[in-house]
């Protein structure tokens, strides 16, 4: 039963995969530099890797904003965020999962009487503004650098495009990794305080409770990428602005750098150690960073016709999304608590030390939850490995056949030429 509460988080993960994977590979797929299949496989693998390896930093920040201490509450918070994203997407309003989850957590804080840490909130809000701005700055700098290199080295167009394609794959993988690391907090962050599982020993790697949740969330994101992101990817390529291969590469690289910056605890610690202010580890909206990066390219090209309506819509999203998610969460919590009689959370300042509610929530399921969780994760990982092996075997066979038919065609052409008139 407790596992059912995770469904809202998984749904949120699925919708994040369906929408945000297009921010990573949309321009590459839209410009036909990479096939959708390859993009989906690379994005899925790296999103999961990023979520599991580096997902904890941004998740901790969300925990500071509001530590949802009941599974029912976590379910409602994630559901409210997911429904907000769904409704706003339906009405074509630019929406960010990050802003929706932040609004929903504040809604939970208000409902349960927990205080909202204003310092953390301002840290988060500041990154909503600085994310797109940094995206623009990075893209201008990288585009300038790339143009300079291209001009001075005079690389052949065919070779340059081949480098760009390889670069797009690497940058896309990095962006997917950063997306997983940064945005997994949106998907599973609220469940972390309310869910404590036994460590899962995979032999070569031990997964903590949070990482098991992140792995499951990562798999949900991957499912969203594979099942539903194709259409979005196809339209993103030409949707915002028609991008050349090199511009697409710069945009993806800039986006991944910004996402990585806001999720890397290593980078943050490094800055702290040399006396600089640390980078806040906060989930940022990949869509808005992407738009910032595209606008950066437009500014570099000296394009006068930047669509200020899009900028206005982003700014409006900073307010409307969290407010809508917060209100929806508040009323949903009211319904869940009073109609379904499910506990949605407590004021943590009222709990007795030593008898934390977290403990109550997590030991309830006991060992059976750990067993189910372990089996689900292992089953999904095995299925993924088998599917990937089958795919690559088939691809290799297809390439072999294509090569053979090519050789045959040109062989016939040569023989035909040798024939006397």
């Amino acid at each position, binding site marked *: 039963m407790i596992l059912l509460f995770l469904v809202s988080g998984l749904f949120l993960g699925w919708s994040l995969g369906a929408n945000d994977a297009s921010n990573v590979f949309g321009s590459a797929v839209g410009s*036909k530099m990479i096939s959708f299949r390859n993009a989906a496989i690379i994005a899925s693998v790296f999103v999961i890797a990023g979520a599991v390896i580096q997902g904890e930093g941004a998740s901790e920040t969300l925990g500071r904003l509001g530590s949802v201490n009941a599974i029912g509450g976590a379910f409602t918070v994630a559901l409210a965020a997911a429904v907000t994203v769904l409704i706003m997407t339906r009405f074509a309003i630019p929406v960010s999962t990050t802003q929706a989850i932040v609004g929903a957590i504040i809604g939970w804080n208000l409902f349960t009487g927990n205080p909202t840490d204003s310092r953390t909130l301002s840290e988060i809000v500041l990154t909503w503004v600085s994310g797109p701005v940094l995206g623009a700055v990075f893209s201008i700098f990288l585009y300038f650098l790339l143009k300079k290199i291209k001009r001075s080295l005079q690389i052949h167009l*065919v070779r340059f495009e*081949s480098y760009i394609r390889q670069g797009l794959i690497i940058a896309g993988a990095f962006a997917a990794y950063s997306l997983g690391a940064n945005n997994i907090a949106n998907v599973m962050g609220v469940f972390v305080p309310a869910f404590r599982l036994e460590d899962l020993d995979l032999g070569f790697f031990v997964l903590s409770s949070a990482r098991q949740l992140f792995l499951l969330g990562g798999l949900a994101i991957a499912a969203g990428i594979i099942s539903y992101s194709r259409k979005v990817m196809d339209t993103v390529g030409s949707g915002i602005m028609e991008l050349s291969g090199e511009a697409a590469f710069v945009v993806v690289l800039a986006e991944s750098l910004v996402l990585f910056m806001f999720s890397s605890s290593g980078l943050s610690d490094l800055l702290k150690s040399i006396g600089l202010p640390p980078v806040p580890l906060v989930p940022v909206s990949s869509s808005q960073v992407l738009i910032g990066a595209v606008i950066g390219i437009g500014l570099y090209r000296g394009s006068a016709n930047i669509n200020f309506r899009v900028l206005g819509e982003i700014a409006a999203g900073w307010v409307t999304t969290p407010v809508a998610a917060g209100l929806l969460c508040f009323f949903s919590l009211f319904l869940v608590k009073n109609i379904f009689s499910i506990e949605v959370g407590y004021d943590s300042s009222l709990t007795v030390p030593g008898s934390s509610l977290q403990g109550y929530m997590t030991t309830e399921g006991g060992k059976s939850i750990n067993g189910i969780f372990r089996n689900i994760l292992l089953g999904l990982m095995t299925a993924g490995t088998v599917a990937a092996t089958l795919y690559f075997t088939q691809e290799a066979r297809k390439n072999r056949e294509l090569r053979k038919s090519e050789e045959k065609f040109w062989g016939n052409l040569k023989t035909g*030429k040798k024939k006397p008139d």
Partner: protein
Amino acid sequence: MALFTRTTRNLIIKIDEFFDDIDLGLLVFREGVKAYLDNDMQTFERHVLKAEALESNADKLQRSIENDMITQSILPQHRAEVSTLIDEMDEIIDTIKSSLNEFYIELPEIPLSLKKNLLSLTEASVSAGEELIPAARAYFKAPFTVREKLLKVYYFESETDRISKSTKKTIFQEMNELDLAQKAHLRYIIHHIENISDNAQKAADLLSIMAIKIMM
């Protein structure tokens, strides 16, 4: 990744070889016409055969380049334009082959007084084509230099027009000793020679737009 690099390298070689064929074809045409006007038929026939071989090789390369670009999904955003450019340039070598064949089959009688005009016409028309080749090569390596290189193509094309016009005027207004059939035949031959620079101009127009687009 190794396959990736090999395909890329092969395609670059094929594109370069295609341009070499056109360049060589222009040279063969100039020498062929010169040999015909000098009445050196043995050399002329050698050049006709050479032009045919070059044209056939260029056709094969054109098909192979287009095939590689599609099957290996190379240059997805520029593929259509590059294919059109190669097609336009292939027209030049096709014209070279067909023009030399016209000379070979029809054996036009060229009055001695027109020899200099026809040599100048051939020179100007071939030069327009020759100036196109470095511009086309530059598109792939240094697109910002394409437009300045194309200026020479336009110059030689207008020179060809000027020479052709004055030659035709001479034929029809001053050479009363020629009958109308011979005059028409000469006009037809001039038109063939002129075609090379016209094709070069068409390719230059396309190249000029392609260069702007790629620099944006």
